[in-house]
C-alpha cells in the first residue's frame, strides 16, 4: 500500500486512486495495517507514506489555491515535464524549474484543517490502541529510544496521585508539571521531553497538558461536509518535507529585513499557518471516516455492520450492568440510587435537537460529596471507564483565569482553543467542591455563563470578538458539589453515605485499592460505549400509557409535576432502557424510571427539610 501511495503521481488518476484506497480500507483488517500518527512517533514514519490519524478538527483555515498540474522545464535540455501537485506541499523539480507561464498549469483549491488528537483521551485508550500499532517498515533503525507510551502512562498515574501540597491547579491534577499562575501561556509546555522542543510553539490544544502530534490536514474534496469539532479518522499521505520548515526558519531569520509588503502576514500568523513540518506534519487526506466513538475495544465500524458483536454484547448487558452497579455503589459510599443515576448519566447522549432544544442530555449534579480527595478519586475511576474525559476543578482561580470558550485570535488568525472545545461524548467532570469564597471577575462570570449555556443548551458560543458564533456540542457534564450546584443541571441527587464519618478516611483509601481486573474494566468500558450508541424508540402503545400516567400524576398533585418533570422522566426511562440493552421502552422500564425518580425526589425533600436552605 505504501508503494501505491508513492507511485508516480502522474500515473492513473485521482478518482481512481481515491477509490482504490477507499476500497482497501473497507477490508476488515486493512485499517489496522496502516500506521497511526497517534501511536507512532513521527520520526518512525516514512515521509510520503500512508498513515492514519484519529483527530478532532480544531480550526479551519482559509482555503488555499495550489498548482494542481504544473510544468517543469529542465534548463539544460529544455525538456518539459508535466507534474501533478495534488497531495503535495512542494513542487518537485530537481534541477529543473517550474514554468509559471505554462498554459498547462491548472489551479485547484483545497482546504486546510488544523487537527489535534481527541482532547481528553484517557490513557487506557491510547494504551490499547497502541498495542495494535503497526511499526512501519523503515529503512533506518532509530538511534534514539523514545519513551514508550506505557511508560508515559505510568508517569501519568504517578501524576494523578492527589498532590495536596500544590496549590489548586488550573487544569487536571495531571499537569503537575508546570507552575501555577500564567497557565494560558504555558498551556502546551508540558514538562515531558517529548514536547520540550515545542515550547516556543503553541500547538493550540483545547486542554492544558495535552500532548501528541497535531496535524495540518489538507482536504481535497467535500470539505463543506466537515464541521468544526468533528472527530475523524483521517487516512492520508504524510508530508514532512523539510522545505516547509526551511521556509519557516528563514522567515524568522529574515523577518527584520523583509520587504514590508511581505510581512502582511504577521510573524504569529506565519508561525501558526506554517509551523515546522517536523512538529506539525501535513497530512493530505485521501479518505476520512467519522469516528462515532473512540473506544478501541469496540469495532471501529458502525454497530449495524457488526451484528455479531452487537448481539453478544447485548446479551451480556444486563449482567454487566449489575456488576457495574455494585461497583459504583461501592464507590459512591454504598448509595445504590446514586450509582444507578451515575450509570444513566454516563450513557447519556444528545441524540437529536428540536429547534433549539437538545434532546437526551442528562447532566447530573451529585451533591453531598464529602471531601475534595473523594471527588478526585471518583474522577479517576470515571477516567478508567470512559474513553475521553476532563476534570475541571471549579476553583475561583481556575474560573477567573482559564479560557473555557475558544476565542478567535485575529493576530495569528486562528481559533485559540479553550477547555470547552471538546469532542462529543467527552465526560466533563466539574468539581465544585474546590470553589471557595471570593469574587468572580469578568472572565469568571463569563466562564460560569458559558458552563451554564453548555449544560442547558449543549452549545458553546465561540468568541469571534466582533460577534459570537454558536457551536453545538454533546458533552456529558457531571457536577459534584457539597450543596446544590450553582450551575443548572437536569437532575440533582444527594449522596447518602452509608459510611459513618469516622470510618470515612479508611473507606476512602480502600476505594482506590479496590481496583478491578482489567478484563472486568474492559467489560465496563464496552458496556458504556455500546449503550450510548444504541437506537431507541417508543411504541405507540407505550406513548399512550405514558400520557395517561402523566395525566394521572398531574391530577394527584398538579403542583409538583410539571412539563419539566415529564421531560426528565422520559430521558430517564430512555436511558434506563438502554442501560439494560433494550431498544424500546417497556412498561417495566417506565415504572422503574418513575420509581427511581420518586425516590430521588423524596430524598431531596428530606434533604431540604434537614438543610432548609434549598432555594
Amino acid at each position, binding site marked *: 500500500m505504501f508503494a501505491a501511495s508513492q507511485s508516480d503521481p502522474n500515473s492513473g488518476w485521482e478518482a481512481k486512486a481515491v477509490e482504490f484506497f477507499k476500497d482497501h480500507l473497507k477490508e476488515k483488517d486493512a485499517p489496522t495495517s496502516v500506521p497511526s500518527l497517534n501511536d507512532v512517533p513521527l520520526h518512525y514514519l516514512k515521509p510520503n507514506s500512508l498513515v492514519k490519524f484519529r483527530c478532532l478538527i480544531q480550526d479551519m483555515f482559509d482555503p488555499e489555491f495550489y498548482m494542481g498540474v504544473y510544468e517543469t522545464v529542465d534548463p539544460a535540455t529544455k525538456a518539459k515535464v508535466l507534474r501533478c501537485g495534488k497531495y503535495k506541499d512542494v513542487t518537485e523539480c530537481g534541477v529543473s524549474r517550474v514554468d509559471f507561464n505554462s498554459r498547462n498549469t491548472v489551479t485547484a483549491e483545497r482546504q486546510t484543517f488544523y487537527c489535534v488528537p481527541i482532547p481528553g483521551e484517557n490513557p487506557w485508550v491510547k494504551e490499547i490502541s497502541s498495542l495494535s500499532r503497526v511499526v512501519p517498515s523503515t529503512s533506518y533503525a532509530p538511534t534514539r529510544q523514545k519513551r514508550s507510551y506505557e511508560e508515559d502512562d505510568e508517569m501519568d498515574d504517578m501524576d494523578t496521585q492527589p498532590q495536596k501540597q500544590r496549590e489548586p491547579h488550573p487544569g487536571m491534577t495531571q499537569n503537575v508539571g508546570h507552575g501555577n499562575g500564567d497557565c494560558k501561556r504555558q498551556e502546551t509546555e508540558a514538562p515531558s521531553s517529548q514536547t520540550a522542543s515545542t515550547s516556543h510553539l503553541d500547538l493550540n490544544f483545547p486542554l492544558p497538558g495535552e500532548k501528541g502530534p497535531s496535524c495540518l490536514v489538507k482536504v481535497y474534496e467535500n470539505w463543506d461536509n466537515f464541521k468544526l469539532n468533528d472527530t475523524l479518522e483521517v487516512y492520508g499521505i504524510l508530508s514532512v518535507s523539510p522545505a516547509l520548515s526551511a521556509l519557516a526558519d*528563514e522567515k524568522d531569520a529574515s523577518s527584520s529585513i523583509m520587504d514590508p509588503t511581505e510581512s502582511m502576514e504577521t510573524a504569529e500568523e506565519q508561525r501558526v499557518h506554517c509551523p515546522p513540518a517536523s512538529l506539525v506534519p501535513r497530512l493530505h487526506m485521501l479518505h476520512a471516516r467519522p469516528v462515532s466513538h473512540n473506544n478501541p475495544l469496540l469495532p471501529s465500524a458502525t454497530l449495524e455492520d457488526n451484528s455479531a458483536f452487537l448481539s453478544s454484547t447485548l446479551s451480556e448487558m444486563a449482567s454487566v450492568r449489575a456488576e457495574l452497579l455494585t461497583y459504583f455503589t461501592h464507590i459512591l459510599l454504598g448509595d445504590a440510587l446514586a450509582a444507578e443515576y451515575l450509570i444513566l448519566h454516563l450513557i447519556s447522549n444528545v441524540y437529536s435537537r428540536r429547534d433549539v432544544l437538545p*434532546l437526551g442530555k442528562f447532566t447530573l449534579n451529585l451533591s453531598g460529596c464529602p471531601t475534595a480527595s473523594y471527588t478526585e478519586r471518583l474522577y479517576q475511576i470515571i477516567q478508567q471507564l470512559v474513553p475521553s474525559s476532563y476534570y475541571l476543578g471549579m476553583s475561583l482561580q481556575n474560573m477567573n483565569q482559564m479560557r473555557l470558550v475558544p476565542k478567535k485570535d485575529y493576530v495569528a488568525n486562528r481559533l485559540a482553543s479553550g477547555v470547552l472545545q471538546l469532542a462529543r461524548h467527552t465526560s466533563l467532570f466539574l468539581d465544585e467542591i474546590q470553589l471557595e469564597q471570593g469574587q468572580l471577575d469578568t472572565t469568571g462570570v463569563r466562564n460560569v455563563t458559558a458552563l451554564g449555556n453548555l449544560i442547558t443548551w449543549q452549545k458553546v458560543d465561540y468568541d469571534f470578538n*466582533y460577534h459570537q458564533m454558536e457551536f453545538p456540542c454533546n458533552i456529558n457534564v457531571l457536577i459534584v458539589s457539597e450543596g446544590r450546584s450553582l450551575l443548572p443541571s437536569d437532575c440533582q441527587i444527594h449522596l447518602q453515605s452509608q459510611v459513618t464519618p469516622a470510618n470515612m478516611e479508611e473507606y476512602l483509601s480502600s476505594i482506590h485499592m479496590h481496583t478491578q481486573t482489567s478484563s472486568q474494566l474492559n467489560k465496563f468500558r464496552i458496556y458504556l460505549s455500546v449503550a450510548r450508541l444504541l437506537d431507541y424508540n417508543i411504541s405507540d402503545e407505550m406513548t399512550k400509557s405514558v400520557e395517561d400516567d402523566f395525566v394521572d400524576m398531574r391530577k394527584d398533585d398538579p403542583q409538583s409535576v410539571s412539563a419539566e418533570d415529564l421531560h426528565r422522566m422520559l430521558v430517564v426511562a430512555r436511558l434506563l432502557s438502554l442501560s439494560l440493552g433494550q431498544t424500546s421502552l417497556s412498561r417495566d422500564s417506565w415504572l422503574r424510571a418513575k420509581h427511581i425518580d420518586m425516590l430521588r425526589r423524596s430524598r431531596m425533600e428530606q434533604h431540604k427539610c434537614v438543610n432548609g436552605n434549598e432555594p
Partner: protein
Amino acid sequence: MSSPTSTPGGCKRGRNTNPATPSSEGPTSPPSQRRRGQDSSTGDLMPMPTSPATDILSPAAPQDTSLFSSPRPSVQPNEVDMSSPLMYGTPSSRVEGTPRSGVRGTPARQRPDLGSVRKAPQVDLHSEYFIFLRFLQRFIDPTSNEDENAGLDLNEPLYMQKLEEVVYLSVLNSAVVILLYIFCILMLISKIFFPQEVIPTFDMAVNELFFERFPDSILEFQIQVRPYNALKTRNMRSLNPEDIDQLITISGMVIRTSQLIPEMQEAFFQCQVCAYSTRVEVDRGRIAEPAVCRHCNTTHSLALVHNRSVFSDKQMVKIQESPEDMPAGQTPHTTIVYAHNDLVDKVQPGDRINITGIYRAVPMRVSPIQSNVKSVYKTHIDAIHFRKTDEKRLHGVDDDADQKLFTEDRVQTLKELAAKPDVYERLSSALAPSIYEHEDIKKGILLQLFGGSRKDFTQTGRGNFRAEVNILLCGDPGTSKSQLLQYVFNLVPRGQYTSGKGSSAVGLTAYVMKDPETRQLVLQTGALVLSDNGICCIDEFDKMSDSTRSVLHEVMEQQTLSIAKAGIICQLNARTAVLAAANPIESQWNPKKTTIENIQLPHTLLSRFDLIFLMLDPQDEAYDRRLAHHLVSLYYQSEEQMEEEFLDMAVLRDYIAYARTYINPRLSEEASQALIEAYVDMRKIGSGRGMVSAYPRQLESLIRLAEAHAKVRFSEKVETIDVEEAKRLHREALKQSATDPRTGFVDIAILTTGMSATARKRKEEAAQALKKLIQAKGKTPAMKYHQLLDDLRGQSETAITKELFDEALRALADEDYLTVTGKTVRLLA
C-alpha cells in the same frame, strides 16, 4: 520569503519573468493560465497592449487596430512585456500619459489597484471605449436616490453632471473618483473577466471626455473609474480558482487593518561625489541600486534620498465572512485585501463592507536559493471600491443592509404561502414547534417579528412613531419562557439575548473604552444598540436592577438611546423590539394579585409593552394529555417526521425578512374606522364603572398590531380583518394581564397607573373613614399610630390591612390634614 517577489499591488508582477538575478527565476505570474485560456482558438494569444496608458490613450485608433489585427505569433509574451513601458508612469518617464495631460500637467499614474496586464483578452477594447463613452454621456440613473446625488438633476445624464461638479467645485483634489454602477450588460461581462484591461480603458474615456468638455481645467490627478456592484455580491466562500484576476464583489467584515505602508515606487539616488541624481523604478519590489555613477564614474557613490523618492500608500485589510453567510458548524473564512492610495484608512475594524476588487493569486516561493516552490498560492484582493453596508445605520433605516437577495423561486414560494388563507396560523405554529400550545403568545411574537410600519412625523415635530411591538411574558417558572426567547433569538438575524441578572445598564446601552490598538476612546455598543432593527430578548426581566431598567424607558418608546459619558455625548438609534420574560416575585404566580404586584415592575415600564402575556400552567386534564402527547412525540419521532409537520425555520426566516423589507402596509379607510370604533369601545367598557380602560398608547398598539398582521398577509393595506385580529389579541393579552383579581374586570389602569380603579376607590374610602374617625375623636393634636389602626379596624366593616391604612394616612397627609412622624400621627391646622 526573503525575496520580495510578490508585490501584490505592484505593477509589474507577472509581466517580466526574465530573472533579475540569475539564481532566481521569478515565480511571479498569477496563476491565471488556467484552462480557460486554452479556449482561445487563435492558439497563440495576441500580445496585449500591456500599458494601456500609453498605447491606447492616444486616441489614434489605427494603433489599436494594428495591435489587434497583427498577431505576432513568434513573439513570446514575456519578451513583449519586457519592452513595455513601466506601469508606474512618472512625469519624467511618461510624457504623453493622459491625453493632453502632458500639456496640462495632470500626471498620469498607473493605478496600483489594477496592476498589470499580462495576457491578451478577447475583448475589443476599442469598441468598449466608445460604448462606455456613450454610457457616460447618456446614463440617467433610474433608481437614483436623493441622498447620494443631492443637488443633481435626476433627468440629466448622471455622470456628465458629476464631471461638471468636478470642475466647479473641485470636490476632490487627491483623486477624482467616479463611482460607476455597472449597468451595461456588454461592459459588465468584459469587465468582470478582464478588469485590468477594461477599467483603464474606461479611465481613458472619462478623462478624455472631461478634457473635451472642459478644455481649460487642470486636474492634479487623473479621474478614475471605480466600478462597484459587480454582477452580484458573492459570498467569500464561493470564491474559487475561476475567479482569479476577475472583478468580484464580496461582502464581509473588516477584522484588521495594517499600518499604512509606504510603498516605494521610484527611488531617488544622488551621487555623493558629483551630486548627479538618478531615478530608479521599483522592479518587482526591489530597487537596483546603481553601482556606478554615470556622470563621474565613481563606483558605489550613490546614496538613496528618501524624501525625494516617490511612494504610494498601501494598506492591508483583512476581512472575514459575515456571520450570516456562514454555514453552521464551520469557522469563518478570511481574505486579505490591499487598499491603495485614497482607499487607505477608509475602513475600520468592525465595519461591514461590500468590497469590489480584483482577485489575485501569487505563488509562494520556498527560498531564493532552492528552485522548489511551495505549490500554494497566496491570494488577496486588490480593492477598487469599498462600500460600507452599515454606514447609515446610525442615521436612518438602512435598506441595503437588510436587503436579502431572494431568488425568483423563493419569492414565488413565499407569495404562494402568503396567499393561503391560514398563513397566519401556519406561521404561528411553525414558531418554536417544540413549545407546546400558547397559541396566542406565539401569534403575538409572530406579529412582533413582523413589526408595524414606520411612520415619520419629524417634520411636524412629533418625531418617529414606534413601529416595533414590545412583548412581556410573565408566568410560572418552567413554562418554557426562556426557550421561547432562545428560539426568537436564533430566528432573527439581528437578535440579542441577555439575561436581566447578568446585564448592567452599560451592557445594554453602550460603554466607552480605550481601544488597545489605537489607544483611542471608542464607543462599544451594548445589546440594545446591537439589536437595532432586530429583537432584543431579555430574560429574567424582573431581576434587573432599577438603574438598568430605567435605560429601557427611552428605548422602548422613543427608540433612541442617549449617552453622555467620557466626553462622548450622543444619541444612538435603538429601534429594537423588546421581548422580555419575567418571573413572578413569589416564584409562583399569585392569581389573587395583579400583574404589577406579581412581578413588581414599575408601571411606567409596563405600559410600554404592547402585549403582556401570562404563561401559566393551566392545570386541566385535557391540556395535560395534549402536552404529554406533544412531549412524548418529541422524544421518539424522527427528525424527518417533525419537519414535515412544520414549516422550515429557513422559510419562516425568509418570509419575515421579505415582509419586513418589501411590505409597508397603510391603513385603509375601513380599517381606520374599525380602529376608532375599537378604541371607543375600549374606553366605554371602563367609563360605565368610572374608570378609564384605554389610553392612546393602547390605540397605538392596536395600529401596530394591525399593521403587522397585514404584513403577515403580504398586504399593502391594513383591512378590517387585521384590526379584528389585533383587537382579539390585544384583548387576550389584556384579559390575562390586566384583569383585576378582585373584581374580575379588565382594567387597563392596572398597567398604566399600577393600581386598579377599585383599589384606588378603596383607598379613598379608607381615607375618608379615617378622617371621620379622627374628627370624631375631637381635638387631640397627636395620636398613636397603632391605636388609630386598631380603632379604624374596629369601626370598619371591611378588612383594613396595614398597607391600606398606610396609604390612607398618606392620602390624608397629601391633603395637609395630618403628618406622620414615626409612630405618632399629628393633626395639622
